C-alpha cells in the first residue's frame, strides 16, 4: 500500500506533475527572460508561463472541422502523462523511483512519446502546416536521435548496466565527457529551440503541429513541453552528474544542471538563425554521428 502511495506521490507531486510543472514553468520563464536580456529587452514577468497556462485552460476549445475529437483531446494528455511517467522513474534527489533493470529503455520510450504525439497532432488537426510540421518533426527526430541514443547507450555500455540508479552512481570517465557532448548536441533539437526550431518555425509554418490546437489541449501541450524540458534536465542529471547520496547537495546539483541546460539552450537560441531541415539533418548526421561514433568507440574500448 505504501508502495502504491509513494507511486502516486511520485506521479503527482515529486518528481512528477506538480513540482516539475512549477520548476518547468520557472525554467521556461528563465529561458524567455534570459533571451530577452540577451537581446537587450526587459522580458516577461516571473509568472508569465503559469498565467499563459491558466488563461489557456480557461478558454473554450474548438475542434477543427473533420478532425477526430478523441485524438484531438487525447494526444496532449498522452504526451503529458508519458512525460510525467518518465519523470517518475528518474532517480532524482528525494524521489521514490521504482528502480528496476532496464528502466533506461522505458525512459527512452517515454521520451519519444511526446514527439510521436506531436507528429500525430500535426496529422490529426488537418492543418496543412501541421502536416508539414509533422513531416519535419519526424525527420528531425531521426536526426537528433543519433547522438541522443548513442550517448545514452554508450554510457550504459560503459557502465554495463541499464538501470538508471546504477548509471547515476557510475564512475566518471572519458566516455561520460564524450557522451555528454553528444547529449548536449541533441538538446536544442529535442526542445525544438533555435537553431533547430524547424518543426515549429513560426515564419514558415506557423505553430506547426499545434497550429489548430487551442484552449485546454494547447495548455496541456505547453505544460508537456515544460515537463519535457524537466525530463531532459533530469536525464542529464542522472546520466552525467555524480550522485553524492546526500539529498540537499543532490538537489543543488540538480538545480544547477537545470540552469546550465537553460543557459545552453538560450545561448544557442539567441546566437543563431534557424537551420533548414536539410542542413539540420546534415549537422546531426555528420557532427552528431561523429560524437555518437566517438562515444560508442570509447565505450566499447574502455
Amino acid at each position, binding site marked *: 500500500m505504501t*508502495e*502504491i502511495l509513494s507511486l502516486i506521490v511520485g*506521479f503527482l507531486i515529486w518528481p512528477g506533475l506538480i513540482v516539475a510543472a512549477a520548476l518547468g514553468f520557472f525554467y521556461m520563464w528563465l529561458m524567455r527572460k534570459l533571451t530577452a536580456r540577451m537581446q537587450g529587452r526587459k522580458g516577461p514577468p516571473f509568472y508569465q508561463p503559469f498565467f499563459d497556462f491558466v488563461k489557456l485552460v480557461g478558454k*473554450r*476549445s*474548438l475542434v*477543427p*472541422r*473533420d*478532425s*477526430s*475529437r*478523441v*485524438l484531438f*483531446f487525447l494526444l*496532449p*494528455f*498522452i504526451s503529458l*502523462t508519458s512525460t510525467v*511517467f518518465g519523470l*517518475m522513474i528518474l532517480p532524482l534527489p528525494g524521489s521514490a523511483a*521504482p528502480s*528496476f*533493470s*532496464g*528502466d533506461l*529503455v*522505458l525512459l527512452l*520510450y517515454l521520451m*519519444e512519446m511526446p514527439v*510521436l504525439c506531436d*507528429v*500525430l497532432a500535426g496529422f*490529426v488537426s*488537418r*492543418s*496543412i502546416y501541421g*502536416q508539414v510540421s509533422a*513531416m*519535419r518533426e*519526424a*525527420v528531425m*527526430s*531521426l*536526426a537528433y536521435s*543519433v547522438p541522443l*541514443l548513442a550517448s545514452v*547507450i554508450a554510457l*550504459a*555500455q560503459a557502465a554495463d548496466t*541499464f538501470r538508471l540508479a546504477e548509471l547515476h552512481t557510475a564512475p566518471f570517465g572519458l566516455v561520460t565527457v564524450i557522451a555528454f557532448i553528444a547529449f548536449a548536441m541533441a538538446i536544442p533539437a529535442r526542445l525544438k529551440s533555435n537553431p533547430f526550431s524547424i518543426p515549429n518555425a513560426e515564419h514558415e509554418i*506557423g505553430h506547426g503541429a499545434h*497550429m*489548430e490546437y487551442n484552449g*485546454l*489541449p494547447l495548455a*496541456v501541450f505547453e505544460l508537456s513541453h515544460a515537463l519535457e524540458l524537466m525530463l531532459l534536465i533530469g536525464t542529464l542529471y542522472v546520466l552525467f552528474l555524480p550522485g553524492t547520496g546526500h539529498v540537499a547537495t543532490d538537489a543543488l546539483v540538480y538545480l544547477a544542471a537545470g540552469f546550465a541546460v537553460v543557459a545552453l539552450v538560450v545561448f544557442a537560441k539567441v546566437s543563431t538563425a534557424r537551420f533548414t*531541415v536539410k542542413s539540420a*539533418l546534415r549537422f546531426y548526421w555528420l557532427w552528431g554521428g561523429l560524437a555518437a561514433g566517438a562515444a*560508442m568507440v570509447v565505450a566499447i574500448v574502455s
Partner: protein
Amino acid sequence: MITTLLPSPAFWPTALLFGGAILEVLLAGFLSSRGKGWLAFIATAAALAASFALLPAVQGGAHLEATAFLWDGGAPLTYYVDGLSVLFMIMGTALGALILMFSIGYMADEPSGTTRFFFLMLIFIGGLTLLVGAQSLLMTYFAWELIGLCSYFLVGFWYARQEATDGARKVLLITHIAGFGFMAAILMIYAQAGTFIWSDPKVAASLSTTIVILLLVASMAKSVLFPLHTWIPEAMNAPTPVSALLHSACYVKAGVYLIARMYAIGDWHPAGGAFLLVVACLTMIVGVVFALAQTDLKRLLAFHTVSQLGYIAAGLAIGTDLGVAAALYYTISHALFKGTLFLCAGSIQHATGTRDLRELGGLYSKMPVTTWVWLIAAAAISGVPLTTGFVAKWLLLSAALDDGQAVVVMVAWFVSILTAFSFMKATVSAFYGDPSPSLAGKHIHEATPTMQVGMGITAVLCVVFGIAPQFLMDPVIAPAVEGLGFNWQIATSWGGVLTRAGSIDVSLGAIGVIVFSVVAAFGAYQLTRSRPGTAVNVFTGGESLPEGDRLSATDFAEMAEVAFEPVYKTDPDPLWLRFGSWLGAVAGKVGQTALWAEDKFIAVTLAGAAVLCVWILAL
C-alpha cells in the same frame, strides 16, 4: 513398418492439413466457395488443436520422436517434435485458421479457383508443419521447397495478370536459387557426417563455416533478409490472405525456423553469428527506410516485414537464451500483428478496391471495426506499451543490452521510431481525414463478420499477450528455448517487464497513465468544449485550400526520400534482376540446346551451374 495409421500425435497436425487438402479436392464439386472455406478452416482448426495437444509433451525441453514409415533404411519419414516445432506448428495453424476464416468472406466473390486456393493454402500450412517436424534434412528440404512451390502458385493465383505471374516468378527465382544453397549444405553435411538426421551428433560436428553460411543464405532468402529481400514486394500481387499467411506465419518464418533449428543442431554461432547480426541490422534499417517511401498499403506492410524479420534475426544472432526467447516471442508477436495488418489491408482493398494510400482516407466513419483492429495492430508493430510489440521489442532490447550489443540497441531503437512514423502516416492517410476524392461514389462497406472475427481475434491476442506475456512465454516459448539447449531463466511479468522485483508497479503505472490520460482528456473535453455545432474551419491563411489538397502519404515518403537518399541509391534489386534475366537467358539457350540434343544430362548441368552461381555469390 506402419503400425497404425497415425502412429504418433506428432503427425496429427500435418496429417489433418494434408487430409483436409485432399478432401478439398474430393469435395470440390459439392461445395460452394464458402463451404470450401469452412472446410479448410475446420481442417486447420483441428490441426491447431492437435498442435496444442503436443504442448504438454514438450515442456521442459523434452521432445517426441516418431517414425511414420520407413522408406528406405536411410531415409525414414521421422518426426522430431520439440518445443520449437510445436511453437511453429501452433503459430502456423493458429494464424492459418484465422486467415482461412477471413478468407471465407474474402474469397466468396471470387469467380473461380477457390478449390485451388484452399487446397494450396492447406498444403502451404501443412508444409510448414512438415518442415518444423521433419527430422531428416532431406525431408526438411522437401518441405522447404514445397512451401516455396505453394507460394509460387498462390502468388500467381491470378495468373492471368501479368504482374502476378512476374511476381511469382521473382519469388521463385530468388528463394529457389538460395534454396539450392540449402541443398548443397545438406549434401555437404551428408558427405561429412553420413546422415541426414539432424539430431545426430555427427551432424553437429560437421558444421563448417561454409555450411553455416550456406544455411544462413538459404534462410535469408526465405526470411527476406537484406540483400535477398527484394522479392517480397512482388509477392504483393497475391490475394491478401496469401500475403498475410506468407508474411506472418508460414513462409518468411521458415527461415527463422531454420536458423533457430541450427542451435539444436550444433554450435553454429561462432561461425555465423556476427555475420547474421550485421545482416539483421542492415535488414532492419533497409526494410523500414523503404517502407517509409511506400504508398501502396501492402507494399508498405511488406517492407515492414523485412524490417521486423531483421529484429527476429538479430535476436537469433545474439544467441543468448534471452535473445532466442526474444526472437521466438517476436516471431509469434509478428505473426499476430502482421497477420492482423494484412487482413485489415485486405478488408480495405475488399471494400474500396484500392490499396493505394493516396486514394484512401476517412475510412474511420465507414469501417470502424477495421479501424480499431488496425489501430491495435499498428500500435503493436510500433511498440506501444501493453501490446505484444512492446514486449517483443523490450525483450530484444534487453537481450541486446545484456549481451552488450549496443549498436543493435541503437539500430533497433532507431528503426522502431521510424516504424512508428511510418504507421502513423499509413493510419492517418487511410483512416482519418477527408475521404479521398477517388473514393467518392463508391459504396464502402465494413468487412463481413467472418473477416471481422478473423482479424479481431488476432488483434485481441496482440493485446492479451501484450498485457500478459507470461501466458505465452512460459508454456510456449520456454520449452522451445529449452529444446534448443538453452537454460531457461527468464521470468516475465505483466506488461512484459522482466521480473526481478517491483516491476508490477510499472505495469500498473502504465495502465494508470493510460486511464489517467483518457479520463483527463474526456474531462477536458466536457469542460471546455464550445457549444455544439461550432466546428470551425482549419486555419489555412484566410482562404480555403484548393479542393482535395492535403498532404498524402507520398509527400511524407518524398520527405523521407530526401532524408534517406543514400539508402535508396543502394537498391540491390537491379542486381538480382540482371542476374535473373541473365539466368533466364542462359536457361533459354541451354533449353534450346537441350531440345536439340534431347539429352537430359544438360538439365543437370544447368542445376549445377545455378548452384555454382549461388556459391560464388555467397562467398
